[in-house]
């Protein structure tokens, strides 16, 4: 049970705190409800580029990292398709510095052309390092536009292409800031050896004078229901073949989301899972095969990813996966297997609770999707699922017409075969 307190400032900033004295650090987490899905389709990669610029300093505090270093702490951030999350871990005696620095960069922006130039270049290198210069690095750059046709999930957080980042202008930066970075579009969580009263006092002191801003309403379209199987085949200079399948699933706000998540655990969480036992060890088709959900807020994807062993034919591989998916559709998971997966998930949650920053991030996340109190309902939710419910969900998910498949083939493997 995570005991937290929540208040909202007059300007709309939500502030949540949770007391935990097990660490000499306090975790400070500020979530902005803006991500790559809010980008202009012609200017993608922007939310993430913007996150980089937030470390470039402001007029009042040109050297933000210098101040963090003086505290002896650390800070960082990440961006995904739905939101952007900034966090500090500072020694508890210096936690006020986080309030100061994050309120300062919420208040104003003063990015220099130099900072924009450099961060454009840094992000381009990040693009290369993570997506272009890695074997299989572009899997998702290929899958997203196959599975999505209209919704902005069709591009990755890093952006559709390098040119979008190269062309980012100062005007875009300003526009983005004033459209999304505002107290009324943010959630602050603080976890550590600090009272709620103190957290509210500091929040009031540093954030209260920032004005509410008009948040640009989401203007993107949802995809129409997929009606037939989509496939894409590519051949690359990689060592082995990969099969990537994606099925449309519910949005984050539905119970169906968590049921789908549990199906992915039945299939591939842990060495005793069905995929590992039957496809890796018994049938010896794959070196690894996993099922997982993407975890997005709008209607998301249920994913199966398999690395084929050299002698395995792609059709047989796909058929074997379908056999497992059909088993989920056609028969009930037995009680032992249900219990096993539930126990494992519950244990995972207990271990995750040891980490203060993790708790701070989770509280902010659950508040974003409706209510921070959901954090304490996860175990009950997991425990409540029935075999019948899983079967029903599997029937909805695992249909050929709901599936996009990427055949990512090794040039070498096909050379050898011919």
């Amino acid at each position, binding site marked *: 049970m995570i005991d937290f307190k929540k208040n909202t400032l007059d300007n709309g900033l939500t502030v949540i705190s949770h007391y935990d004295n*097990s660490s*000499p*650090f306090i975790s400070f987490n500020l979530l902005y409800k803006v991500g790559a899905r809010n980008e202009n389709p012609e200017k993608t990669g922007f939310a993430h580029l913007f996150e980089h610029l937030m470390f470039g300093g402001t007029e009042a505090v040109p050297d933000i*990292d*210098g101040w963090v*270093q*003086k*505290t*002896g*702490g650390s800070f960082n951030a990440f961006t995904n398709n739905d939101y952007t999350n900034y966090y500090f871990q500072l*020694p508890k*005696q*210096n936690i*006020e*510095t986080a309030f*100061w620095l994050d309120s300062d960069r919420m208040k104003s922006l003063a990015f220099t052309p130099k900072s924009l130039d*450099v*961060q454009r*270049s*840094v992000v381009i*290198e990040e693009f*290369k*390092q*993570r997506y272009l*210069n*890695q*074997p*299989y690095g572009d899997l998702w750059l290929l899958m997203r536009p196959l599975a999505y046709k209209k919704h902005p999930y069709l591009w990755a957080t890093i952006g559709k292409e390098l040119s979008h980042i190269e062309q980012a202008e100062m005007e875009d930066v300003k526009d983005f800031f004033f459209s999304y970075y505002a107290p009324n579009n943010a959630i602050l969580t603080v976890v550590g050896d600090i009272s709620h009263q103190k957290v509210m006092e500091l929040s009031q*002191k*540093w954030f209260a004078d920032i004005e509410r801003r008009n948040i640009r309403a989401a203007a993107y379209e949802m995809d129409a229901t997929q009606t037939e199987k989509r496939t894409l085949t590519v051949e690359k*200079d*990689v*060592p*082995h073949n990969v099969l990537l399948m994606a099925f449309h699933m519910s949005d984050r706000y539905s119970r169906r989301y968590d049921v789908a998540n549990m199906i992915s655990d039945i299939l591939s969480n*842990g*060495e*005793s*899972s069905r995929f*590992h*036992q039957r496809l890796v*060890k018994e049938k*010896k088709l794959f*070196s*690894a095969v996993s099922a997982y959900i993407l975890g997005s807020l709008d209607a998301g994807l249920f994913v199966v990813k398999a*690395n084929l*062993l050299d002698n395995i034919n792609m059709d047989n591989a796909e058929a074997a996966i379908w056999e497992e998916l059909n088993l989920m559709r056609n028969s009930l998971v037995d009680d*032992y297997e249900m*219990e*096993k997966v539930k*126990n*494992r*998930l*519950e*244990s*995972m949650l*207990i*271990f995750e*609770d*040891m*980490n203060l920053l993790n708790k701070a991030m989770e509280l902010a996340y659950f508040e974003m999707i409706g209510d921070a109190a959901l954090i304490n309902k996860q175990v009950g939710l997991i425990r409540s699922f029935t075999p019948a419910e899983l079967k029903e969900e599997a029937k909805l998910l695992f249909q050929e017409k709901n599936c996009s498949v990427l055949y990512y083939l090794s040039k070498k493997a096909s050379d050898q075969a011919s």
Partner: protein
Amino acid sequence: MNNIPEIQIIDNININEAKAFELDNGIKVFAIDAGSQDIMRTDFIFKAGVWQQEKFFQASFTNSLLREGTKNYTASEISSKFDFMGTFFGSDIDKHAATISFYSLHKFYEQSLELVEDIIKNPIFTEHEFAIKKQQRIQKFKVAKQKVESLSSDKYFELLFGTSHPYGKKSELEDFEKIAVSDLINFHKRFYHSDNVYILMAGKNPEKFIPMLNLKFGKTDWKATENVPDRHFAIEQAAAGEYLVKKDDAKQSAIRAGMILKPESTQDFFSLLMLNMIYGGYFGSRLMQNLREDKGYTYGISSVVREEKEATLFLIHTNVGVEYTKNSIQEIKKELEILVNEKIDEEELDMAKRQMLGDILTLFDGPFAQIDAFQYLYDLNKDYSYYLSLIKAIQEFTPEALLETAKKYLQSKNLRIAIAGNFVD
């Protein structure tokens, strides 16, 4: 306008020390008592790493196959039981050790331990499981050979230690054909016994579980059956300079550069840690500020000074756009030359000192970090006074003294630089 918050320097680090126990057969157990959740992490550390193996992959296959079937349980029964209890089992090897770990809830500790006992004492190493693991490893091996990061890293360690030293030896695809199940059985017999292990625990109230550990692992039923002598290897360093592993289609080059350091005293080692901090040890470091924040050559660059059993290493690593490869190497050298020729500015030194103290604080943040910090000391034959001396040294560093140390150890002409990728003008 509010005043800028006051910042306190970290001067007091609360060290929660590991408590020592001994099982009836002499196995040492070290335990951190911390945390509020009813959980426990337990590690068995065997001297059974790369250093001990006679063939490539012998240590790692032995270690990873332990859980794949025992005299009493099949591989799938073991997996099922662990998963049912929500126990997370892990195994890993490094240069000098093989580790078997499990993280479990208190209520499943005894049952988990029973399985772990069987895994450690009674593995059966079947051809079937070995073949599966081998195919998995071959695939990973081939993927790694396409990554500039692993190509440059392999080259770098070869340059520093030579091809016959375990730190520098590089395996090839053919080596997978040279290893057999009998090698694993043999390796297990020689190294996985009660005279070659110590145990670490971290979590709430570990003392409660010592009697259980003693019951399962404290007897004389798994003693050494033969005497295995320690092995020694000579280091053969390549000449300083730049070495290119060419990859024509690379979009980035991976650079690994550095040297072996031979600090004459602990004080010198501490000074090297500090110099490294300033050079490439944190976000505000000179390398990061220059190559990333000023020039945009890279997503990240960092350096580390690390004490290993056989050598103290200085290692710089980064990935840069191929078109920036030349300039990046130049800047890496230039920054090192500045470190050796110019006194560090007081303000910069103050910042790095504070960051380093903060980093020490993170070493003791939570039970798992605390046991890791203990293990670092134990493996290098140090005790907790090491951290106290380090904290004192940090507080006392001066620009003058650091400059002397830099001159003594960090000459750029000694750099071994491995580049995987391409030079493009």
